[in-house]
């Protein structure tokens, strides 16, 4: 069905299983990157988007199971949804902590909930073509989002600047456990998209949707946090600050973000060409939260 020739790196495949992690937030300060509220809050936007977003992934994928005819892909998808469910729960647990620290995220998360549950929800569609079209569209959106989660996962696994700056170890472990699992399962969403549809036009169209939504929600989330942070007086988020943090390695660099766009749109793209499964698995073997879980 696909009209592209993805260049698959088969050695990057690994069996997927969710890990029973837990994090305790009692000792994580509001500005968990010390003295850098902008970086803290830019990354904190993950806690706003992921609980609802990854719940939505699971919701969509449960509906797509009957369309899967490949047993290995089915197993990958089962592992994927369990990992995503754990990510959603783990980020969700940060929200009450932010509220306790005086930064109530609810006005924003209630909108993200609306975005994923209503705007991108099941909608009242007649069974048949319309319903299937909307399902395939959402599967393709997830594939595009997963390109960025893998990009961010790969970035955070290598973001030594955060360690040097003395970022909170629990938060770093959450981000890196999550990032490593995103790298580990980075091919599943794209493989599923290729399996059920794979149309290049749909890939480009849904990439544009997902990219626009991500940029819109992310800048909005960062501004929301900066403006409502009880310790900041007139906190502002700016593009200049983003470029600066990118240059010093506290956030992904603007250049890397721009370069990731044509890669996804290349007809030969396959997520296995990006990042390293070996690095992800190595981190998971040493992560304090994932250690001892299965």
């Amino acid at each position, binding site marked *: 069905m696909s009209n592209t020739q993805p260049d698959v790196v088969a050695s990057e495949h690994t069996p997927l*299983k*969710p890990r*029973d992690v*837990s*994090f*305790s*937030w*009692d*000792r994580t300060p509001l500005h968990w990157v010390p003295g850098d509220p902008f970086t803290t809050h830019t990354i904190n936007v993950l806690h*706003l988007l992921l*609980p*609802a977003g990854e*719940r939505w992934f*699971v919701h969509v*994928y*449960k509906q797509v*199971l*009957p369309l899967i005819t490949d047993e290995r892909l089915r197993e990958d998808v*089962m*592992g994927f*949804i*369990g*990992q995503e*469910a*754990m990510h959603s*729960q783990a980020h*969700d*647990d940060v*929200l*009450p902590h932010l*509220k*306790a620290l005086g930064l109530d*995220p*609810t*006005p*924003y*998360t*209630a*909108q*993200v*909930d*609306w*975005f994923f*549950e*209503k705007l991108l929800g099941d909608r009242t569609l007649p069974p048949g073509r319309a319903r299937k079209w909307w399902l395939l569209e959402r599967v393709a959106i997830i594939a595009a989002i997963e390109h960025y989660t893998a990009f961010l996962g790969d970035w955070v696994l290598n973001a030594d600047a955060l360690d040097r700056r003395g970022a909170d170890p629990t938060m770093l472990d959450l981000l890196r456990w999550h990032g490593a699992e995103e790298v580990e399962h980075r091919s599943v969403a794209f493989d599923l998209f290729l399996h059920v549809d794979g149309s290049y036009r749909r890939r480009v169209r849904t990439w544009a949707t997902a990219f626009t939504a991500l940029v819109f929600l992310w800048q*909005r989330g960062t*501004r*929301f946090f900066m*403006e409502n942070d009880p310790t900041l007086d007139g906190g502002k988020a700016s593009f200049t600050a983003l470029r600066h943090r990118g240059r010093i390695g506290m956030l992904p660099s603007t250049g890397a973000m721009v370069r990731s766009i044509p890669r996804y749109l290349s007809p030969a793209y396959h997520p296995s060409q990006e990042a390293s499964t070996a690095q992800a698995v190595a981190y998971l073997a040493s992560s304090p939260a994932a*250690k*001892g*879980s*299965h």
Partner: protein
Amino acid sequence: MPRIRTVALIAATALLARRALRGRISGSPLWPMPALDEPVSGRSGRRRSLAATITERTSPADGVVQLRLEGDDLPAWTPGAHIDVVLPSGLIRQYSLCGDPAERGAYTIATRRIEDGRGGSREVHDALNEADEVEIRGPRNRFPLVVADAYVFVAGGIGITPILPMLRQLDAAGADWRLLYCGRSRATMPFLDEVEKLGAAGDRVTVVPEDERGFPEDERGFPELDFTAAPDSTAFYCCGPEGLMTAVAEAVPPTATLHLERFAPRAAPSGGAFEVELHRSGRTITVGPGTTVLAAVRAELRDVSYSCEQGFCGTCQQRVLAGDIDHRDELLTDSERDDSMLICVSRCNGERLVLDL
């Protein structure tokens, strides 16, 4: 020059629109997205982790270690509740709270060392010391104290831990209760002094150490405590080894309600066979003692979702239309437990479950 006029008009409109938008956004930064009426994120209450410090380690009986855990903002609990303790190796074990529910900021647990167990109790005894920090989750209550006219408790050894706070509460309220407390020997039975003191006034406590008085049960039931003499509306509670709980279940009058607290491993597919009706598919399947509901359902319905198969990820949660669920996960909230289950680990207390599948 109509072209210049058009460009100027468009530019002016764009500027005005930009100003209007800016004003609107600075007035309320979250305009214009609507919000979900009942937000979901940030309020699941599932699996909240807490950091606690061990402030006291004592030994209330031979082979038993008692830990006092203190932390900021520990949630309130009711008698019968337990917490998950994440041990340094990553093992997660459940322990009943045996302290005072009125005391906020501290939890007390007690555990017996089991040499041939799964390793959790050995790790508590060998690796947890005063001033150590542990991660805990919960509390959760699957063994709550119900309102009844009278209460009968049967505790086996360390099984006294969830029951002790119940006895304190009932005694303070002047309720009618009796306790049969069994164990290997008096020296190995924790909290014996306190229990005997609580029951001294009304002769409520019967202590049966095996080395002095033999097993508490014989083929006719429990000679020390006549279960049938209890009034009809008596609530029976038992926590102890599997054999003791089976004997109590047989001795309890059929009309009475029996509450059991197991120390069972959470993912072991053990327990009797039962039937599961898949309501929407119109099929009925049998779940054997060595298998799980998930495995039995998958044989019929290929597209049922699941992932961890250990009761923590929640992707196999299914709605239950009828039947008495034996919840064995540590994830679902109490209200979710009313009408849904994780089919990878949870089972059935009776003979039949009806799933919305």
